[in-house]
């Protein structure tokens, strides 16, 4: 399975923020400048998460997407936040998002998710499932009400006809905590042949190596810690021959200002 690194940008009232444990936030900067930087770093994919939209039922943040696409980035872009209908999804795709991610819509009206998958194709849909450990049991977590709501049953994700391409599991407790992602969450899904994206507390290379060695994990997503250093992904993700085939421009000394 192809492995990749997704750069996450969490947005709160139009500012990119560090999110720690889904409740504490620190300001980082302008989302469009961070997206432009991820593109310049040539990350594999960019995921924008606007966390106010669903809470305030405002629908997708089209102005935010417009600010980002106006930078004319050539990196795959995925949007999450406030999507309520297939109309929203199609409009996002037209406005420059390549894929969309959903959480509460899967729970409240799965049939709307079916229509979305029909119009933009299930490969463009990611299901997001925040998880939390309580008394050694893993629960699904409702980030709107900030409480766990049901015990995790991995088989439940595959019983219904499939209307998403990848499942992003989020370790709520360890989000924003360096190198703390709870890898037991992955093994829960080992028999479900889903394609997993892991997010929340991933920041160092040994951790990434272990997680990506799981056959069902197709991607790791990193948010906060990508802002701590310059080109951090170069030390987190080992260079594969795919990177060489992508003609990334890194790793050679240029002749001077005119080549910068």
């Amino acid at each position, binding site marked *: 399975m192809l492995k990749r690194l997704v750069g996450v940008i969490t947005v*709160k009232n139009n*500012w*990119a*923020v*560090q999110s720690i444990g889904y409740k*504490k*936030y*620190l*300001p*980082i*900067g*302008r989302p469009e*400048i*961070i997206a432009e*930087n991820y593109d*310049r*770093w040539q990350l594999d994919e960019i995921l924008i998460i606007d966390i106010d939209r669903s809470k305030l039922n405002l629908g997708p943040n089209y102005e935010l997407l417009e600010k980002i696409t106006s930078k004319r980035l050539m990196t795959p872009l995925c949007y999450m936040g406030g999507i309520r209908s297939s109309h929203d999804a199609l409009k996002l795709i037209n406005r420059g998002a390549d894929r969309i991610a959903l959480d509460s819509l899967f729970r409240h009206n799965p049939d709307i998710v079916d229509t979305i998958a029909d119009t933009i194709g299930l490969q463009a849909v990611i299901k997001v499932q925040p998880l939390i450990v309580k008394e050694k049991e893993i629960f699904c977590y409702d980030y709107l009400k900030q409480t766990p709501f049901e015990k995790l049953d991995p088989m439940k994700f595959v019983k219904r006809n499939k209307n998403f391409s990848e499942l992003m599991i989020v370790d709520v407790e360890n989000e924003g905590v360096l190198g703390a992602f709870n890898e037991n969450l992955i093994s829960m899904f080992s028999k479900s042949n889903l394609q997993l994206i892991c997010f929340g507390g991933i920041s160092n290379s040994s951790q990434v190596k272990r997680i990506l060695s799981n056959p069902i994990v197709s991607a790791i997503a990193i948010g*906060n*810690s990508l*802002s*701590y*250093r*310059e*080109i951090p992904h*170069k030390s987190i993700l080992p260079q594969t021959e795919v990177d060489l085939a992508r003609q990334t*421009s*890194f*790793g*050679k*000394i*240029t002749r*001077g*200002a*005119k*080549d*910068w």
Partner: protein
Amino acid sequence: MVTQCRRCLYTSDHALGIVFNEHQICSGCIIHEEKDTLDWSSRWQDLQKLVSEYRTAETKYDCIVPISGAKDSFYTLHLVVNVLKMKPLVLAYNKYFNTPVGIANLARLRIAFDVDFQQKNVDPILVKEITRKSLYAHGNPYWHCIAGETVFPVQTAVMMKIPLIIWGPHQGVEQVGMFSHLHNAEMTRRYRKDHDLFGYDSDNFVGPFDNLKDEDMLNYRYPAFSDIQEIGVRGIYLSNYVRWDPYSQHLEMVGNFGFRGALLSRTFDSYDHADCYVYSNVHDVLKFYKHGYSKVTDQVCREIRFGRISRLKGLDIVAYYEAQQPKYMDLFCNWLGVDSQSLQFSMNRHRNGKFWDEIEPDIWVNKKDQAIKERELDYRIPEMKYPNCKSKSYETNEKFITIGKGVNWPLQLNKNTINNDWL
């Protein structure tokens, strides 16, 4: 709707972006608490371990230290040279808005720490062109200073293959708690474009309607990531490893190394920007027009958090200093070659409707200050002393200094004071 922090004076309009928790305390104040909770001796050991990788026995510089004629340059160099015992190459970008005090501090700093020093002087004709564009498009006369200051060290690091750059404070952490100190946030190109340059780096200065060409902006271009990766350039901030308290640090530097400040008109803090005619005047007024607050608010919030000023008193201090007229506007006009009335016109175009009402054409009123005008403002801060800053030494010059001597010894040589009987 604007929220204001309950502990300091910052509002949700802060230029760097700010977040409030459920008790309406801003992220800056929350992260500031770490200054009294972290174990700073173990932080210092982390720093020593980090820099030890870069301290070489070879005849090479161990690191690069960017400085200016004021801000935290003295204390940063004190830590790097005297305490960490490293051999730095010290770099500065010539802002051209230099005051006599700034030039004197630069000279004194080179001597006090006995450091090899290099300064970048970009063609001033081009610098004025860039200043006109940044004033016109962004209401900011200071773009070239910040752009140059933050890129020249990185360019030099890449060209001279000196991987480690040591900066003083991380402004994002100190003002709005952008990162925890424990995140050990490092220098990034994104932070520079996003916050130092408010979203506009050198590429955004060259457009179909501008008279600047690509070639003109080469001095401000950030090195390519391939260079940075190949040489392993990284910039660290001492404020992540040391309990950063600029006011007490400045007092220490005045005492030990003769750092000098200057009385400024729009702020009580005479140390931070004593080296620049423009930062606390033209630039400060424009910051007030665009963001609704001036540098004095940043400094008051800092001192509130350190407990030297009460929040209530802070309101009076800000109200008083924000209303003071800027000085040396004529010097800036002469330098740029513009008339002061015309400058004021182009500055007014950047008044932000959120904070300013244009009650009549070209007559502006600040929404905030109607209520404060009547009562007497208690803005004096007797308990905060600022030794070693005389305003007179600040005004001896009638134009910006490009390069200055910095020390007045030997005074009489070269002037025609030696028995010049040739007439």
